[in-house]
C-alpha cells in the first residue's frame, strides 16, 4: 500500500522555503575531521579509567564460579578486615530489581538469593588500592546449593521445572510472541513451491577495546554523580534513582568518552550501581574498571538464534507467504531481550514484497552470560536465514540471485504486511553498484572451483519509533547557546561512543550558522546539563538529534536575522550565513562578522538560547506490539563477497568485498564510510571466527574468557572493501541523512555463505562458518550425501496463539469490496 512521502522540512529539497535555489553547502557532505580526533590520537582524551579523584577508592566484585545455585551463605568477615578495605557490600542492601526494559526487571546489583551464571556478582569491595580490593575479594566465602544448569535452547525447553526466573512466561521461556499478517496458509496454497529451511546463528560478543569503567561520587550535599563508559546515560539515570531509591533530580550521569560500545554498553550494569552505593557508604569516590574476563560476563552480545523459515513462492520467484519461527537463547537475564526477540522477526518484510507474513518468536533463559543488543540487534540472525534461503530459491528456479532480488523489492513510500512504513529505498541502485563493481555478470559462474561470489541485501531501522519505556516526550533534545564572543555551544544528551555524534552536531550547526565546525563547542551526555537524548542505540542519533539540532539552530538563526536584517536594511530572506559572515545575498559586502551579528541579537533580545526537539512520527500499525519495527526511515545495503575456499582444510578466505549503502545524504562521508567498513569488519569476523563458546555442562565461557581464546579478525585478516555511498536524500532525515552504523553489517554473513556455495557447492546454514563445518559439508557432498551443515530440526516451542492482523492490502480490499478477507479479524 502506498503512503505519502515525508514533508521535506529539513533542507533536503532543491529549493529553500522562499522558492530560491538552495546555496551550496559548505560543511555537510564534505569530508571533515572529527572534532575530538586530535585529542584522541594524541592520547589526551580522558576515558573513565584515566580519571582520578582525591581520596578515590577502588572496587572489585566477587563473582559466582557456579552457573546455577541457591546462595546458602555469604561470609564477608575476612574481606572486611583486610588492610585498606573501606566497605564491603552485599545484595541485601539493594533489593530493588532492575532491567532496561520495564517488562524485564529481573536483575539485581548483587545476587543474594540465587546465582544464574558463572560471573554473577555477589559482593563488592571498596579499598584504597585496586590490589587490596582484589585480595579482599578472594577472601569472601560463599556457600552454594547447586541447581541443575541449563546450557542450550533445547535444554531450556526440555526442563521447564528447573526454572531460572520465576517471573518467566512459561518454564524457561522468558517471552514469546506470535503474529499472523494475512492468511499465510492461503498464501502457501497459492504458491507453486513451498520450502522450509532451518538455520542457526551462534552468539558472539562486542569486543569493544575499552573495558567498562565507572566512578561513583556521592557528595556531602546528598547528590550523586556517576562517570561511566555507557552508551545510554538517560536510562542509566532512571535506573540509578530507582535502585538506590533516591530522587532522580539528585542523580547526575556523565557518559565519559567511550572506547567502543557496539551495544555492549547500553544496559545499566550492576557495577555502575555498586560503585554509587559504595560511594554512599564511604563518602569517597569509588572507581571500578572491569577486567576483560568480566566484560565477557557482562556480555549482552548477539543472541544465539535457531530459526525455521517456510516460504511459498511462484515459478517466477515471487513470494506468496512467509512463516518465520525463531527461538533465541537469552542467557541468564532479560535486559533488552524482549526487544531482541521481536527483532528476530519484525523487519523481515522491509526488503522484499511479502504479501502475507507469520512470525512466531520466543526467548529462553539459560545459565550463560546474558545476551542483548549487539550491532544489528536481533536482525542479523533472521537476515542470514532469509538471504540464504532466497539464494536457494534462485538456484532452484535457475535465476540470477542479484536480478532475482531486484524483482522482489518493496516499493518506496509503502506499507509492509506488518504495517511498517517504508520511506525511501535505494536498494535497486545498491544492487546495481555491487553487481557492476564486482564484475558479477562476467565472473560468477566462470571462476575456478574453490572461488566464489555471493550476494545479499539488508535493511535497517534509522531509529526506533518508540522509546524503551512508554512516554510521549521527545526522543532527542538540543539546546543552543550563543553569546557576544561568537561562540556557539550545542548541548545535547547524545553519547559519542566513537561514531562521531558530537561531530555530527557540530557539522549541522556549522552549516546552518555558516561557521566552521571547530568554532562550535558541543557539550553532550551529561544528564544535569544537556537535554535528554535517549542514547546511542537503534541507529537513531543522527536522525533524531540531528533533526533536533536543525530545529534549534534554525530558531537561533531566525533570531539573528531579525536583528541583522533591519540593521543592514535588507529583507530577511536575503540574509545569508556563510564563511563566518552574515550578509546580503545580493551584495555580499553589505554584512558583518558572525560574532557581530550575535552581538546585535544579544543587544536587542537579551541572552540568546534556543531549543529543538525530535519525536518520531506515530506508527501506522494499530495492533499490540506494533511499535517495535517502525522507523522514520530504513537504510538499505547490498553486498557482494568474494571467497576463496580451500577444499582440503575448509578454510575460507575473503579477498574482496563490495558494499553499497543507501544511507541517505552523508553528513560526513568519511565517517559514513568508516561505519560501513567497520560493520563489514564486524560482520565478517562473526561470520568466520567469533563465537561465545561454553565449556561442557559447567557453562563456563571459553577456556579463559580472554582475547587469547576469543577469535576475532584483526587488520591482517581484512579484505579489500570497495564501498559505494548512494547519497540519495531522505526527506525525513536531517539534510537527508539515514543511518549507517548497523545496516551494513547485515548482508555480510549471508553473502559469505552464498559465496561459499558458489565456490564449492555446499551450504553451511550456521554461523560461524568454521573450517570444520565447511570441510564436513564438502566431505558429505563427496560421499554423495547432502552437502550441507546446519540444524536438522526445529524444536517444539509452545508459542502463544497468533495475534491475527489484516495486512494493509487486506484493508484496501475491504474498502474496495466491503468484504472482510479471510483471517482479518482485527
Amino acid at each position: 500500500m502506498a503512503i505519502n512521502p515525508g514533508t521535506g522540512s529539513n533542507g533536503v529539497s532543491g529549493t529553500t522555503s522562499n522558492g530560491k535555489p538552495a546555496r551550496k553547502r559548505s560543511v555537510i557532505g564534505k569530508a571533515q575531521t572529527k572534532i575530538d580526533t586530535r585529542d584522541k590520537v594524541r592520547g589526551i582524551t580522558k576515558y573513565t579509567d584515566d580519571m582520578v579523584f582525591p581520596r578515590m577508592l577502588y572496587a572489585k566484585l566477587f563473582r559466582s564460579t557456579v552457573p546455577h545455585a541457591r546462595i546458602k551463605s555469604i561470609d564477608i568477615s575476612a574481606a572486611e578486615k583486610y588492610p585498606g578495605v573501606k566497605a564491603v557490600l552485599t545484595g541485601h542492601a539493594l533489593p530493588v530489581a532492575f532491567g532496561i526494559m520495564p517488562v524485564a526487571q529481573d536483575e539485581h546489583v548483587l545476587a543474594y538469593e540465587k546465582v544464574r551464571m558463572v560471573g554473577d556478582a555477589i559482593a563488592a569491595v571498596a579499598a584504597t588500592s585496586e590490589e587490596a580490593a582484589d585480595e579482599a575479594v578472594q577472601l569472601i566465602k560463599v556457600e552454594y546449593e547447586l541447581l541443575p544448569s541449563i546450557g542450550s535452547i533445547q535444554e531450556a525447553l526440555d526442563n521447564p521445572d528447573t526454572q531460572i526466573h520465576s517471573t518467566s512466561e512459561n518454564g524457561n521461556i522468558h517471552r514469546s510472541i506470535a503474529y499472523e499478517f494475512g492468511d499465510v496458509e492461503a498464501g502457501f496454497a497459492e504458491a507453486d513451491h513451498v520450502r522450509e529451511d532451518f538455520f542457526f546463528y551462534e552468539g558472539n560478543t562486542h569486543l569493544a577495546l575499552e573495558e567498562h569503567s565507572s566512578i561513583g561520587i556521592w557528595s556531602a550535599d546528598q547528590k550523586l554523580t556517576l562517570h561511566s563508559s555507557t552508551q545510554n546515560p538517560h536510562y542509566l539515570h532512571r535506573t540509578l534513582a530507582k535502585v538506590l531509591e533516591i530522587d532522580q533530580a539528585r542523580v547526575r550521569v556523565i557518559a565519559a568518552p567511550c572506547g567502543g560500545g557496539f551495544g555492549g554498553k547500553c544496559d545499566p550494569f550492576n557495577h555502575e550501581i555498586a560503585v554509587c552505593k559504595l560511594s554512599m557508604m564511604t563518602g569517597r569516590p569509588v572507581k571500578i574498571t572491569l577486567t576483560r574476563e568480566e566484560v565477557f560476563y557482562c556480555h549482552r552480545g548477539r543472541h544465539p538464534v535457531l530459526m525455521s523459515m517456510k516460504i511459498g513462492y511462484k515459478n517466477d520467484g515471487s513470494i506468496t507467504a512467509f512463516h518465520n519461527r525463531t527461538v533465541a537463547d537469552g542467557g541468564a537475564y532479560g535486559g533488552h531481550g524482549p526487544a531482541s526477540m521481536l527483532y528476530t522477526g519484525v523487519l523481515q518484510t522491509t526488503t522484499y514484497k511479502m504479501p502475507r507474513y507469520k512470525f512466531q518468536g520466543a526467548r529462553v533463559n539459560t545459565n550463560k552470560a546474558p545476551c542483548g543488543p549487539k550491532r544489528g540487534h536481533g536482525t542479523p540472525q533472521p537476515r542470514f536465514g532469509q538471504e540464504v534461503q532466497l539464494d536457494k530459491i534462485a538456484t532452484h528456479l535457475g535465476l540470477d540471485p542479484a536480478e532475482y532480488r531486484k524483482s522482489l523489492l518493496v516499493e518506496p513510500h509503502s506499507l509492509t504486511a506488518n504495517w511498517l512504513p517504508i520511506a525511501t529505498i535505494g536498494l535497486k541502485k545498491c544492487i546495481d553498484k555491487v553487481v557492476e563493481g564486482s564484475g558479477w555478470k562476467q565472473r560468477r559462474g566462470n571462476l575456478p572451483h574453490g572461488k566464489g561470489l555471493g550476494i545479499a541485501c539488508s535493511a535497517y531501522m534509522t531509529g526506533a519509533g518508540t522509546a524503551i519505556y512508554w512516554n510521549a516526550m521527545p526522543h532527542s533534545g538540543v539546546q543552543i547557546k550563543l553569546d557576544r564572543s561568537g561562540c556557539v555551544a550545542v548541548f545535547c544528551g547524545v553519547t559519542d561512543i566513537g561514531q562521531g555524534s558530537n561531530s555530527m552536531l557540530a557539522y549541522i550547526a556549522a552549516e546552518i550558522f555558516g561557521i566552521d565546525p571547530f568554532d562550535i563547542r558541543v557539550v553532550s551526555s551529561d544528564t544535569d546539563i544537556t537535554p535528554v537524548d535517549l542514547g546511542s542505540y537503534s541507529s537513531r542519533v543522527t536522525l533524531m538529534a540531528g533533526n533536533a539540532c536543525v530545529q534549534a539552530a534554525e530558531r537561533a538563526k531566525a533570531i539573528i536575522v531579525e536583528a541583522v536584517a533591519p540593521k543592514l536594511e535588507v529583507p530577511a530572506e536575503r540574509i545569508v550565513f556563510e564563511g563566518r559572515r552574515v550578509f546580503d545575498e545580493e551584495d555580499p559586502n553589505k554584512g558583518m562578522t558572525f560574532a557581530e551579528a550575535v552581538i546585535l541579537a544579544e543587544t536587542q533580545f537579551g541572552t540568546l538560547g534556543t531549543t529543538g526537539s525530535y519525536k518520531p512520527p506515530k506508527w501506522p500499525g494499530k495492533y499490540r506490539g506494533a511499535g517495535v519495527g517502525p522507523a522514520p526511515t530504513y537504510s538499505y545495503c547490498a553486498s557482494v563477497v568474494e571467497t576463496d575456499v580451500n577444499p582440503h582444510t575448509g578454510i575460507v578466505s575473503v579477498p574482496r568485498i563490495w558494499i553499497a549503502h543507501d544511507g541517505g545524504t552523508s553528513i560526513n562521508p568519511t565517517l559514513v564510510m568508516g561505519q560501513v567498513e567497520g560493520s563489514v569488519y564486524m560482520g565478517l569476523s562473526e561470520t568466520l571466527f567469533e563465537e561465545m563458546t561454553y565449556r561442557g555442562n559447567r557453562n563456563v565461557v571459553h577456556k579463559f574468557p580472554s582475547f587469547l581464546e576469543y577469535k576475532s579478525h584483526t587488520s591482517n585478516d581484512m579484505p579489500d572493501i570497495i564501498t559505494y555511498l548512494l547519497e540519495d536524500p531522505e526527506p525525513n532525515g536531517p539534510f537527508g541523512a539515514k543511518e549507517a552504523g548497523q545496516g551494513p553489517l547485515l548482508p555480510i554473513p549471508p553473502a559469505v555463505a552464498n559465496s561459499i556455495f558458489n565456490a564449492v557447492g555446499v551450504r553451511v546454514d550456521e554461523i560461524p562458518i568454521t573450517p570444520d563445518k565447511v570441510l564436513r559439508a564438502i566431505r558429505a557432498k563427496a560421499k554423495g550425501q547432502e552437502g550441507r551443515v546446519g540444524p536438522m530440526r526445529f524444536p517444539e516451542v509452545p508459542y502463544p496463539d497468533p495475534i491475527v492482523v489484516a495486512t494493509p492490502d487486506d484493508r484496501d480490499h475491504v474498502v474496495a469490496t466491503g468484504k472482510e478477507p479471510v483471517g482479518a479479524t482485527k
Partner: protein
Amino acid sequence: MFPAPFTYVRPRSLDEALHFLADHAEDTKVLAGGQSLIPLLKLRLVFPRFVLDIGRLEELHGIHEHGAAIEIGSLLRHVEIERSELLRRAAPLLAETAAEIGDVQVRNRGTIGGSLVHADAAGDFPAAALALDAQMVIRGKAGERVVAAQDFFVDLMTTALQPDEILTAVRLSDMRARFGPRTGTAYVKLRQQASGFAIAGAVALIALDASKKITHARVAITGVNGIPYRATGVEAKLLGEVAGDSLITSASQHAADGIDPLSDIHASAEYRRGMAAVVTRRALSKAIQLATKS
C-alpha cells in the same frame, strides 16, 4: 587479573639460582621470557611463593658450534633463533619454526627453553625438538644430565625436568652432517586465529640418497595430541621409498594413527585428525622439494 602475591628473586649466577632452587624447589617458579608463566600467574592457575627470574643469566645465552655439534642456550629468544645465520644454515627447521610462533611481541620475549619446559600441547618447538633428536641439557644440584627429546616430553605440560632443575641448553647436530647432504626440513601449521597456536602442526625432515630414495624420514606432530609425537606410521611408509606425490599423500593418511585427538573450542577431534594429514602432506612435500634441491 592480578597474580597472587609472590616474592621476586633475581639470582646473579646459575649456581646461585640452583642453590635457591635446592632450598625452595616446591614453592618456586622459574621465570624466563614470561610468555607462558605470566598468564598462568595472572589467571592464578599457579601461585608460587617465589618467582626466580633467570632472564639475565649470561650462562644461558648464546649459540655455540663445536664441529657438527650445536649448543643453544635455553634463554635464546624466538626472534634470535629466527634470525640466527648459524641456525638458518645448520638447523633451518628451528629458524623456520621460531618464525611461526605467536606474534612479534611473543617472539621478542619468549625463549626456546621456556617453550620446551612449558610443553604446551600446541607448542611449536617441542615438535621440532623431537624431529631433530634434540638433547636437553639439564642442571640440578647433583650436576648436569642430558635427556633426549624423546624422553623429555612426558605428558600434557609435563616434562622430565625436576622442580629443582634448570634447562640450560639444547644440543643438536648440523642437519647435513647428521642426515646427509640431501636433507630438507619444513614446518607447516594451521594456526588458531587468536593466539597463533597450532590447531595442527607438522614438522618433516627428509633425507634422500642420490636416487631420490628416502634414507631418513622424521615427522613430528603438534596440536593434535596432549603431547607432540612422532608419526611413526607415516615415517614407516616413507622409509626406503622413492619420494613422490602419491607416496606422500598415502603416507600422510597415517599422521594421527593410534592417536585420540584433542577436541576443544577451537577444533573438533575429527577436524584435527583430518588436518594432521593435511599439514603432514604439505610439510613432506616442502621438505622433499628442499632435499631434492640441495
